[in-house]
């Protein structure tokens, strides 16, 4: 500022988002006649376990659905090979992840998560640009220990630092999500469990309720890369 210039005072602002949790219910009932039979297995326990486990699956599915609503950017196929030199991969996945990650960083994101399906993770790991990092000319898949089935978490992943790489079958196979874990919140609400009885009709029920919601609270801190695997 020049001489005698002065600064006008300014004030900041705060925006507020409000979310309502939704009720999720598991409900089973057993007739009195059911209790008068003997079974070789604990049929009631099988049902209770199933409800409990399916509740966990349902929560994960909601997270997956919410993550995939993020704004998208197209990417190169990490599994594709170079057309003129098929011994190497077509593109460098670290560029595909690095550039949108830079944009997220500039939006105050602390990039700490990469989420893919299982196939995109295999394509990343066997990409020849990553092989150079390991000092190997062959894909890591042939070195063993990489291909296993099902989801999981890579605490450390070669080529990317400071992130947890989460891979899960619930995520679309062709995409990768790079994000700050604070971008999406799982709002874990109240829970109620009850056993009730209807003697007039003649059954007893077990009802389990779970209020929760998955919300993107900072949409500028998450990006979906499309076409990373085909």
């Amino acid at each position: 500022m020049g001489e005698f210039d002065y600064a006008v005072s300014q004030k900041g602002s705060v925006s507020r988002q409000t979310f309502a949790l939704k009720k999720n219910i598991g409900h089973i009932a057993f007739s009195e006649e059911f209790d008068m039979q003997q079974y070789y297995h604990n049929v009631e326990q099988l049902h209770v376990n199933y409800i409990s486990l399916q509740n966990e699956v349902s929560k994960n599915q909601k997270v997956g659905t919410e993550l995939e609503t993020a704004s998208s950017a197209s990417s190169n196929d990490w599994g594709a090979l170079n057309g003129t030199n098929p011994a190497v991969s077509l593109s460098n996945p670290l560029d595909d992840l690095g550039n949108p990650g830079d944009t997220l960083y500039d939006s105050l994101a602390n990039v700490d998560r990469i989420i893919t399906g299982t196939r995109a993770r295999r394509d990343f790991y066997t990409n020849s640009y990553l092989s150079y990092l390991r000092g190997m000319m062959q894909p890591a898949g042939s070195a063993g220990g990489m291909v296993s089935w099902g989801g999981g978490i890579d605490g450390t992943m070669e080529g990317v630092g400071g992130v947890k790489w989460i891979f899960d079958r619930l995520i679309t196979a062709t995409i990768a999500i790079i994000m700050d874990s604070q971008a999406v919140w799982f709002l874990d609400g109240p829970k109620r469990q009850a056993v009730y009885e209807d003697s007039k009709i003649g059954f007893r029920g077990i009802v389990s309720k779970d209020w929760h919601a998955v919300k993107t609270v900072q949409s500028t801190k998450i990006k979906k890369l499309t076409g990373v695997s085909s």
Partner: protein
Amino acid sequence: MSQQVSTGSENPFSTMLQANRRRITELSDAAKQVSEAFWFNPQTKQITIGERFGNNGEMIPTYDVNVRNVEEMAIAQNRARSAGVAASNTEIDHAKYGGWSQEFLPVVMEWIDALERTHGHIKRAEDYLTTGSRARSAGIVRAGDFTNMVVPNVLGQVLNTIVRPHFLLQAVTTVPVPNLTVSIDTWLWNI
């Protein structure tokens, strides 16, 4: 030409004259066959029973009932003998039972079984077959009996109860919320 290889009685010719008492029957139970002689049929290589009487009272074989095919017997026995101690159970069985006709095979099997159980004592084997020392198969409780009272054996494990683990909850921030609604404030930093 027929060849008589064995006789069923001490003196077949004394009974030969008693034509009415001689009978070749077609009884289904081979053990109840009554015959005066065994006849060898050189064309079929079969030992047979069955004869009739000619006008002069001579016995003429009719080869009605096959007893044992000598050729098959010899082949099976030679095979077992050449195998020696290495003979398989199948080869030994062929040697025991090879060539016996369908009518006689059940009787022979019973008889050989009785002989083996009595360690070769013929008298004891006869007792075994004819007296109460023989196990009565009709009295043995079998697996098929009392099926309506069977207690089924069910494995304690129930298959297909696995639910896959998922990890996406760890991709996001979990915030405990005690109420039905929650508000989140964001500082607008770029004033």
